[in-house]
Every structure is written in structure tokens, then in C-alpha cells.
């Protein structure tokens, strides 16, 4: 399996046939039909049984949405038990055997990718895993969605190759594209890149206005790093306060006893 695998999707080439969706469902053994609609669930068409989808945008643009496989994924960083894992090669995968079902990953993902099997009594978090097991075992040489694309709108290679190809296309046809590679640097870079002739900011919550190039896990780590010191510091402060106050009370009691010749030991 190649290091740092990456998908480049060129929105200008997509005809919206959804062959990628069918291929994805097949290789991952997902139910053929879509899940029954659940209020609030399908903002973009993704659900627990549909790991990639094609979003229609005005003027007949088609944008394929899938997990971005971030370089520093928020979902991996927030999982309290490490059920979401960033593999050494790059794809972000999920281990149901470890998961407790807290669904923090679903909230932490800026793109709203992890979905839940709401109708199951034994539910999993489901999302694109970049066909990791099949790629790893060499069963396929590119993800099923890429293999199924009839127009080569979505292609596969190492991240460096894909970035080079994207820059080449931007330079070759500058008037055709918005001069930006979505996923190049946002939240520290993702392994699914997009070229388009429209803005793709809508792929992230809040149109990505709150997202910077800084990886999201840094935000929590800044607060978590000093935790051991806060813990011990609080103990120290409380301990010394107790000691000071106790000692002061004792001295006052002694003083009172000295003055009055035996006061009551109220503090004890």
C-alpha cells in the first residue's frame, strides 16, 4: 500500500452518475437501499449506509463528499478510547470493538462525516475508511469509488502526486477553476483534495468560516497539557490554605486561653 494515499476530486469533471456511491456500498457491504429518512440526519446525503455521496449544487455542479482523512483528525484526537485511529499509512479507520458509542467524534468532525446507526440496538459509527483493508491486502490498487468513476473526475495517488497534479491543472487552465485546492491546508491539510469552479466551503460546518490552517486537536491540547500541574497545584493550594487557617485558629485559641485563662476550644 502506498504511503499517504490521497484522492483528488475535480468537480468540473463530475457528471453526478453516483457510480462511486454504488461501488462504495458494494465493497463495504453496506445496505443497497438508503436508510429510512430520519429528521435532521441527511443534510448532505451521507448516512451510516452511504459513506460517499454526490451533492448537487446550483448550476448543475456535482460535488462528491466523503471522509477527508485529515492529517491531524479531530475525530481521532477526541475519541476517549482510541476507537478512531489514524493508520500509519494515512487513512482514518474505526474499530468497533473498542468504541463505547459516545459520538464525540461526530461532533468534533468539522465536515460532519461520521454517521451513526440510529436504528440499531448495537450501533457503530460509520464513515469512509478509504478502503483501507482492501488496499492494505492488495485486493485493489485504488479505492472502489475511484475505480468506478467513468470520467476520471476522482483520481488516486500519493498526496504529493495529487497536489502536483492539482497545481498542474490550476496552472494549465486558470480560467476554468477557482484558484484554490480545497483540503491543501485547511485544519492542517486533508488527504482528499478538491478542484472546482465553484466554492466548496459548504463542505464544512458554518462554511468553514471558523476553520483555520491550524489542526483542531491543538485547541484542546493547549488546555489539556497543563492539567497535571493544575491538579497538583490545586492540591498544594488547598493543603496550604488548610494548614494556614488551622494554625491561625489554633494560635488565636491559645492567645484567647492565655488572656482569659482557659477559653473554649471552639475550633476543634
Amino acid at each position, binding site marked *: 500500500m502506498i504511503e499517504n494515499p490521497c484522492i483528488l476530486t475535480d468537480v468540473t469533471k463530475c457528471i453526478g452518475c453516483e457510480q462511486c456511491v454504488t461501488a462504495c456500498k458494494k465493497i463495504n457491504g453496506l445496505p443497497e437501499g438508503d436508510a429510512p429518512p430520519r429528521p435532521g440526519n441527511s*443534510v448532505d446525503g451521507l448516512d451510516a449506509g452511504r459513506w460517499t455521496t454526490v451533492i448537487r449544487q446550483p448550476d448543475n455542479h456535482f460535488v462528491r463528499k466523503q471522509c477527508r482523512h485529515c492529517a491531524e483528525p479531530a475525530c481521532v484526537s477526541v475519541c476517549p478510547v482510541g476507537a478512531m485511529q489514524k493508520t500509519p499509512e494515512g487513512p482514518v479507520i474505526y474499530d468497533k470493538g473498542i468504541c463505547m458509542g459516545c459520538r464525540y467524534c461526530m461532533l468534533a468532525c468539522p465536515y460532519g462525516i461520521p454517521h451513526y446507526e440510529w436504528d440499531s440496538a448495537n450501533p457503530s459509527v460509520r464513515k469512509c475508511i478509504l478502503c483501507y483493508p482492501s488496499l492494505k491486502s492488495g485486493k485493489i490498487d485504488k479505492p472502489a469509488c475511484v475505480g468506478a468513476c467513468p470520467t476520471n473526475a476522482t483520481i488516486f495517488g500519493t498526496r504529493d502526486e495529487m497536489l502536483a497534479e492539482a497545481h498542474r491543472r490550476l496552472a494549465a487552465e486558470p480560467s476554468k477553476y477557482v484558484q484554490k485546492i480545497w483540503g491543501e491546508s485547511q485544519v492542517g491539510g486533508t488527504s482528499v483534495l478538491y478542484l472546482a469552479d465553484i466554492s466548496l466551503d459548504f463542505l464544512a460546518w458554518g462554511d468553514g468560516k471558523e476553520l483555520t490552517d491550524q489542526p483542531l486537536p491543538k485547541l484542546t491540547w493547549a488546555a489539556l497539557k497543563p492539567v497535571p500541574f493544575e491538579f497538583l497545584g490545586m492540591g498544594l493550594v488547598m493543603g496550604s490554605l488548610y494548614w494556614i487557617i488551622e494554625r491561625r485558629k489554633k494560635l488565636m485559641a491559645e492567645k484567647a486561653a492565655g488572656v482569659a485563662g482557659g477559653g473554649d476550644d471552639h475550633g476543634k
Partner: protein
Amino acid sequence: MENKRLFLFKGLMWIVAGLAAAVAILRFALGLGTATALSDTTPWGLWIGFDVMGGVALAAGGFVMAAVVHIFHRDRYHAAARPAILTAFLGYGAVAVGLLFDLGLPWNIWHAMVYWNIRSPLFEVAWCVMLYLTVLALEVTPTILERTPFQKTYRFFTRLALPIMVLGIMLSTLHQSSLGTMLLIMPFRVHPLWYSHLLPELFFVSAICLGISMVMLESCVTTWLYKRKPEMEMLSGLARLASVALAFYSLFKLGDLLRQGKLSMVFDGSWPGNLFIVEILMSALVPMVLFAIPAVRRSFRGIWILAACSVLGFVLDRINASGLSQVWATRQFYFPAWTEFSISLGIVAACVLVFLFIEEHFPVDPHGLEAVEAARHTQAKALPTFAPFVQVWLGEGWRKAAKVYSFLFVAALAFGLTVAPKTEPAVKTHAVRAVGAGILSMGPGPRRVYFDHKKHQDEAGGTKSCALCHHLHQKGDVGTPCVICHKNMFLASDIFNHDAHIAALHGNASCAKCHGEGQPLQVTPSKKCSECHTKDLMALNPVVTTFDKKWAPSYKDAMHKMCIPCHVTKAADRKVNLPNLGRCGACHDGGTASEKAYKTEVPVPQEEEGRT
């Protein structure tokens, strides 16, 4: 004399608990989807916002009172310390139980102990809650043991009390603030009015305020339930303390908004802005100002109303930050299902019942216990009176209570199971929403054509063949009728945009680029489209051959030349056995009866008829 108020209150609690038990069965049998209104855009709802976020904050009274009484030696609040610590213990127990409902795989909850991810704030919260629950259990133990024969053990635990208290305060500091840390990673979800890099600190300070208010409210409620004399000295002292703490919190919260330049967002009249105003007024500003007035502090009613107001305000803060304010980002409405409310209230009811049980049997509040025991004693000593039928039937004292309460519980459980939502049979829809399956009717009015998409896709080579017809990578070919581009039925090159080409090729000087140097500016002496559009046009393919021309085809030509050659070939093929396939009526409306024969083999769905 029996306390009717208490009896009714407990009965109500048992009903609520019974209903929750029914929902609990439903939740574990059928999954979260049936029992909640949660969705992929709102994966955390009432159970996290109220039970966990709110529950932990509500139980903050435990560590606040431990610090006030045992570290700062404010002995006048001694009476409040034990109830506060007991509440904290039950509160954290409730959080743990609430989590069992909310977790998708609750039987894996122990994984937090085994699989570590120190970068997750939830990991830290989980550990702190586990440890603090243990610490609280140790803090509660002396209360339970005090009047038992196990005096040696009791003394052992009292000696242990101080280090345990300090450890409890240390742990509380951490996870009260870590609940805020949990939201730090979602600046894109949490509304700017609630999002701040100081969220951990804000959560810690607000937990202290809420803790004090909660201790007051609790004291008021037990006073009311057991018809005791209110401990006004302690309450007004706490109210004064609350006033100071709330003033600090308000300054901190508003100052933080000011620092970030978000203060104007509060007054912009938007839904989050108004929510924020309600929250800060309820939680902090109103109680802060009124608690500062001595006359209010002396009034029992004033104290319980303001304490309740503040408690509700802070719970609203937790719900806002962890859920309600996120509606702003997802634009998806979420309102908890009644089943969610039922579980939340049921857990609270169970806690209240356990609290009252301990209050009545162990020296949580020594004076209170004596009063309860005295009442029990007089009741037992009282001379037998004439017993009405109900009393004979139900018995007295605990027998009556057990009968009535268990009946209420079971009745509520049965009612809950009857009305609880059941899963509906799954409705399957098509996986691929591109017009892949059915028979389409395309084209304008009388020239409408019936077209079996799936059949053509299969013929042309299956899934790889989309680009053969959906050519030019024209966006929206799946949903766009051909006439959108081929506007004129009969005019060749009607999709050719001359102006756009001139503009793209830099003005009038560019004529020769297509028409040739010194040639007349007509269609005939010009380049083929495919000479320039080597890639944008469709790849050479057996179905569409028309682009090897000097102009784009008319609509009629485009359709006819794509369809007819193949249809004619197939019509001649005996194996296909559709002799009329090559005739007009095979696709168009009208035509002779024999021509229509082909169409009748494939019934046209009614709803497709009107979609031209």
C-alpha cells in the same frame, strides 16, 4: 400526623421513575433512534446537555461546600456540607447512569479504563468522574456509619476525611473545567457567544456559583417537604456568598466577551443573542443583584425563588453551550423527544428518592433525622384509632408506602410501555438517486420520447458508459433535458455560443483562428469542434459520432443520430425480436398501432408522465 405533602411528592417521583423504566426498556431493546430525537447533525442532546453536563455542574455543591466548611473553616455552613456531599454523590451516580443510556454501546463503558487516549478531554472527564465518584463514596461513608455499631470503621473514615476532601476538590477542579475543554475543539459548532478559549475556566467558575445555588435550593426543598424551620442564618450567608461569586462570574463572562469583541452580538436581536440574554439574566445578573439586598436574603421565599432561578439559568448555560447554540451551525432543529425527557426526569426522581431515604434513615442532617425519628416514634406509640377501610386494606407506615408506591411505579411502567414509540418498518429507497432505474419521458410536448434508461445503460456497457451520452461533462446531464443546450429543434450548431468563443479567443482579431486566414466568415470553411476541444468533448465512442462535424448538431439531429442507427440495427436483429424498434412510434407519442406495440411492453409509470 402523617406528612401528606411528602407522601404525594414521593408518589409523583415513583410515577416518573416508572415511566422512565418503560422508556429504558425501549431504549435498550430498539436502540437510540427509536428512543430519542437525536440525529447525525445533533448527536448529543438532552441526555448529554442536561444529565451529564448539567448533572456534573449541579453536583458541584459537593466540592464547593467541602472547601468552604473543611478548608476555610466556615463552621456556620456545617449543616449544609453533608447534604451537599450526598447530593454530589447521587448526582455523579446519576451522571454515570445517564451516560449508560446515552452511550451507544454502554456495555463497553469500562473501555475508558483500559484503552487510553490522553489527548481526549472526554478521557480526562471519564477518569475524573470515576475517581471522584469513588472519593464521594468515601466521603459519604461516615454519614452512613455514624449511628451503626461499626464505630471503629467510622472513626477510620473520619480520620481519612481531610485528605479525601482535598483530593475531591482537586478532581472536581479538573473535570468541571474539562467539560468546557470538550467544546474547545468545535469552534465551528459552538456559537461564538459561547465559544471562548477560556471555556474551561468559565465552566469552573460557573460550577462554583451553581454549586452554592444548588445547596441553597436543596436546603429549601427539604425544609418545605419535611415542614421544618428554615435555617435562615445559613441560607442568608450562602446567599451573600452567592452574590459575590455571581458578581465575579458575570464580570468574567462579560469581560471575556468584551475581550473577544463579541459583546455587540448579544444585542443583535438574533435567537442566540436573546438566548444569551435570558441565560445570563437568570443565572447570574438577577440573583446577583437581588442577593445583595439584605431584605431579600432574610426572606425564605426570596432565597428559594432566586436559587431556583440561578440553578435553571446555569443548567440552561450547559444546555446552550453543548447543544442549543449548535443549531446555529447545523441549521437542523432538534427538540428532545418525550422519551428523552422521561429518562432525564426519571433519573432525577430516582436520585431524589434515594436522597430522601438516606435523609430519613441516616444522620445527613442530624436535627432533621431526630424530628423524623420522633414522628415515627409517636406514630408507633399512638393509641389505635378507628381504622377506615382504606387503612385496613393498605396498612400503615411503610406497608402503605410500599403498596402505593409500587403500584404507582408498575402502573407508570405499563403506561409507558403502551404509549412508547415502536420502530416503524424500514422504508427502502433507491441507493442511487441519479435517474438510473426507471423509464423517463424526455423532450418537449408532443414530441415526447419514452426512454428506458437502465436498458440503455446495460446495452452501452454498464456503469462505465455514463460518459458516452452524458457528454461534454455537461454538469447536470442526469437532471438536465437535452433541450437545455440543444434549444432549437432544427437549427444545427444551436449549442455553439459564438460570442463566448470570440470573448475567450480575445476579440475580433481571433476570427481567423477558426475560420482560417483570408477565408469567408461562414460555417463551411471553419475548424471542426473536435480540433480544439480534444478533451472536453466526449471521448470517441461508438454511440455518439456527431461531434466529428464542423458544427454541433441540432436537437433533432443529436437525438436521432444517437438513437436511430442502433435502433435500426437492433430491429433487424432476429434475436432481439423487436421488429418495430426502428420506427418513430417506438419512442415517440402517436404512431401506428404496431409501432406502439414496442412501448406497451414497458409500462410507463404514471408519475413520470407529468415530468416533461
